[in-house]
């Protein structure tokens, strides 16, 4: 395993943290970004396909990012024993295959994870690599509620 693979913990599922979604924060987020009735109104949610008040799927994604970023700071703070400057995460060009597998209900405690799957040099950008991350979130019963494959640029070598 190369110093770069060790630095980014290639292949390892890393737990980023857990968050309990409160009813009020679900409504506050949804009023700004996703005011569908099952996200902003408990009574309407009970009559909806979801059966109970639940978070916008984008809220779950945004929360994954909050915990991912906190972990990224830990990654950057690690000692670096490889050649050249310490690697850094850069911007992301996007993600794919995002699935909202189950609703995140008010009161659910969601645990976020990520796994670095692979990275490759970018011919068009010397000194940069593109890393693929498998990103997941699970509820308190261990059911997966979210998964997606993210790409992120890393500055290395």
């Amino acid at each position, binding site marked *: 395993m190369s110093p770069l693979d060790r630095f980014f913990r290639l292949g390892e599922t890393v737990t980023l943290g857990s968050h309990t979604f409160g009813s009020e924060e679900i409504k506050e987020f949804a009023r*700004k*970004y*996703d*005011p*569908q009735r*099952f996200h902003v109104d408990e009574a309407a949610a009970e009559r909806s*396909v*979801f059966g109970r008040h639940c978070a*916008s*799927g*984008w809220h779950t*994604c*945004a*929360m994954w*990012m*909050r915990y991912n*970023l906190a972990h990224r700071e830990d990654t950057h703070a690690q000692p670096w024993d490889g050649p050249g400057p310490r690697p850094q995460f*850069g*911007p*992301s*060009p*996007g*993600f*794919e*295959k*995002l*699935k*909202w597998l189950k609703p995140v209900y008010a009161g659910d405690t969601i645990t976020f994870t990520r796994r670095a799957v692979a990275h490759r040099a970018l011919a068009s950008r010397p000194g940069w690599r593109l890393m693929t991350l498998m990103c997941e979130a699970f509820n308190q019963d261990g059911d997966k509620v979210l998964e*997606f494959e993210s790409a992120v640029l890393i500055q290395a070598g």
Partner: protein
Amino acid sequence: MTNVKWAFEDFEEGASIPLGSKNVTAAEIIDFASQFDAQPMHLDETAGKASILGGLSASGWHTCCMFMRMMCDAFLLDSTSQGSPGIDYVRWKRPVLAGDTLTGSSTVTAKRESASRPGLGFVTCRHELRNQRGEVVAELQNTGMFLKRGAAA
């Protein structure tokens, strides 16, 4: 629910639905980033100018959320939407900067009725967001679930 404008039958393959325009303010960029993506280029004009994004720029997740709101206001809130199982892809093509005005469109690329749930259908759309210069800032594709008009009683 029967009197909403958009039920499964109302989405036509190839049709493009315009999304309204959205002015992106510095305060909104900072509000979102401080909660979910607290990186310097999303929080501070000077740090943004020094970054490869070239200014105070919205988190990509914030861009997705602004898109979601634009889609809600354009048709989703006046529809038989039953949520979405996911997003096929999102491509963040260019930075979204404070002061930008976003517009966009949702183009129906496919639709089919559910085999397992009568009265439900799947509508696949390719969505595009553009800035005030007409440059594409984000592209995404997803499938939404909508009740048929008769099933929405």
